[in-house]
């Protein structure tokens, strides 16, 4: 049973009361003469009422209002001519062959609608079950919080992996390895393997965004979420792997080879800047063959260590060797 949206003139809400459910009143145009037969031949009312026994009226009203505002049915002139009662439109010629196409489109739309409403129903049922899982996990988390130290490491790990499967945020604050689970530990080891060579090719340091793209492009499927990557990287140092996660003051996150000493790179950065007199992040990046993001971080670190000082103007941020230090 379906009514084209184009038949709707106006919609209004009726609040629920004692003994009566919330309703949405849908005022309609008069039916077009070629309307398909429905549950009733005719009605003395020019509106229908949708009754919402439990809930859903707010969402339904919102979506229906959106559709009424967007009026997407007006973008498809072909199917328009069959359904609405707008009278003859100037310039719209209805060729006979179109009717068959319109019917097919209509059928396809009905079937899609049916599929979607079935999908929504099934989705709602699924969500109810998911909610039960969330409630259960909350109750377990509370128990763990209360009994600090009485839950074994094993049980905590098990619990964390359950949460990971469901996509429930970890509410337990006692963390040894961040939100790390067995999965993340495995992942950390894999990353150490995958990233060794790319890191060496890039001077020992890569931003986490670069790593995310590199790793996921290589995988092709079963991709890592950004959080998976971060959680795995947080465990690198603890697992004594040859890479580490580093967070700069600006919040930029990078992966470095353990052997990489950013502070030493600063010395060579100072040389480069001195040779050229002064450099912006972009110029430095181009010279050295780094991304602008990491170039900037290196120059900022050099500044922090007192080797460079900045000239901040509308022309951009330019770094100079810190002569205050060297020539006093």
């Amino acid at each position: 049973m379906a009514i084209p949206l184009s038949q709707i003139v106006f919609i209004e809400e009726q609040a629920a009361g004692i003994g009566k459910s919330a309703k949405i009143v849908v005022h309609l145009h008069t039916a077009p003469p070629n309307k398909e037969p429905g549950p009733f031949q005719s009605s003395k009312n020019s509106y229908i009422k949708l009754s919402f026994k439990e809930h859903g009226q707010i969402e339904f009203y919102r979506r229906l209002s959106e559709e009424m505002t967007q009026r997407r049915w007006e973008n498809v002139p072909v199917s328009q001519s069959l359904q609405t009662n707008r009278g003859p439109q100037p310039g719209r010629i209805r060729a006979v062959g179109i009717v068959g196409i319109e019917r097919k489109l209509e059928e396809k739309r009905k079937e899609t609608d049916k599929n979607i409403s079935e999908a929504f129903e099934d989705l709602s049922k699924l969500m109810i079950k998911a909610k039960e899982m969330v409630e259960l996990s909350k109750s377990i988390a509370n128990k763990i919080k209360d009994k600090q130290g009485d839950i074994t490491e094993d049980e905590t790990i098990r619990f964390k992996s359950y949460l990971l499967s469901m996509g429930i945020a970890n509410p337990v604050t006692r963390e040894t390895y961040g939100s790390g689970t067995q999965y993340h530990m495995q992942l950390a080891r894999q990353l150490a393997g995958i990233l060794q060579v790319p890191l060496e090719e890039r001077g020992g340091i890569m931003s986490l965004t670069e790593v995310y793209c590199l790793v996921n492009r290589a995988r092709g499927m079963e991709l890592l979420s950004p959080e998976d990557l971060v959680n795995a990287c947080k465990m690198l140092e603890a697992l004594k792997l040859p890479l580490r996660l580093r967070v700069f003051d600006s919040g930029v996150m990078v992966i470095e080879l353990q052997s990489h000493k950013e502070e030493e790179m600063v010395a060579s950065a100072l040389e480069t800047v001195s040779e050229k007199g002064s450099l912006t992040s972009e110029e430095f990046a181009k010279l050295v063959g780094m991304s602008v993001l990491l170039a900037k971080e290196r120059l900022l670190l050099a500044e922090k260590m007192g080797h460079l000082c900045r000239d901040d103007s509308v022309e951009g941020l330019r770094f100079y060797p810190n002569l205050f230090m060297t020539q006093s």
Partner: protein
Amino acid sequence: MHRRGVGAGAIAKKKLAEAKYKERGTVLAEDQLAQMSKQLDMFKTNLEEFASKHKQEIRKNPEFRVQFQDMCATIGVDPLASGKGFWSEMLGVGDFYYELGVQIIEVCLALKHRNGGLITLEELHQQVLKGRGKFAQDVSQDDLIRAIKKLKALGTGFGIIPVGGTYLIQSVPAELNMDHTVVLQLAEKNGYVTVSEIKACLKWETERARQVLEHLLKEGLAWLDLQAPGEAHYWLPALFTDLYSQEITAEEARETLP
């Protein structure tokens, strides 16, 4: 004597009761964990069934994805938290959004030199669709926003700034506070903004307006036009509609990975 005996006994009793209680507490948690494990298996089966019937719907229908995401958020579940989650594994939602994340990063990097790291959601949408090619699944603006929200975890300054009914996506860690954001919103109308306009609309002092504009210039988000009629115009390349149609050049694409 008698009293002390009772006292000691009472303490011992209490200790025993506590120990039993603790033990019981552990047992209770163990029970619940076992229960959760069983329920998880059942849920996994339900999800598999759902996936077998409706996986296509999620792939093809952006509206349905929105519904799905909203429902998950309502009950406190993040289907995109991990690629190892059931949702990702069985519905394939994960791969869809994580790959989109990669594409978003690449587009933003390629265009950064043009717009300083600020891009409208529309332009990002267009460029991403172009990059995906004719036969790829449809991607909605809502999808982009969700993917970007996830990318924030990578710590590289992805931000979403509401302006005039749409959004500006920030992809570099430039410091943008409320003042900067408000001026960006003001600029959205014409693609540029002037000191007088800021003073008139926002009722600010000249100095405050100048500082904000200077910051935007420094960060490469605004360009200074001294040849405009009247006073200096501050243009925001992110808002240039002409740039929408321009392709990402091969050189720009190469710039993304040094």
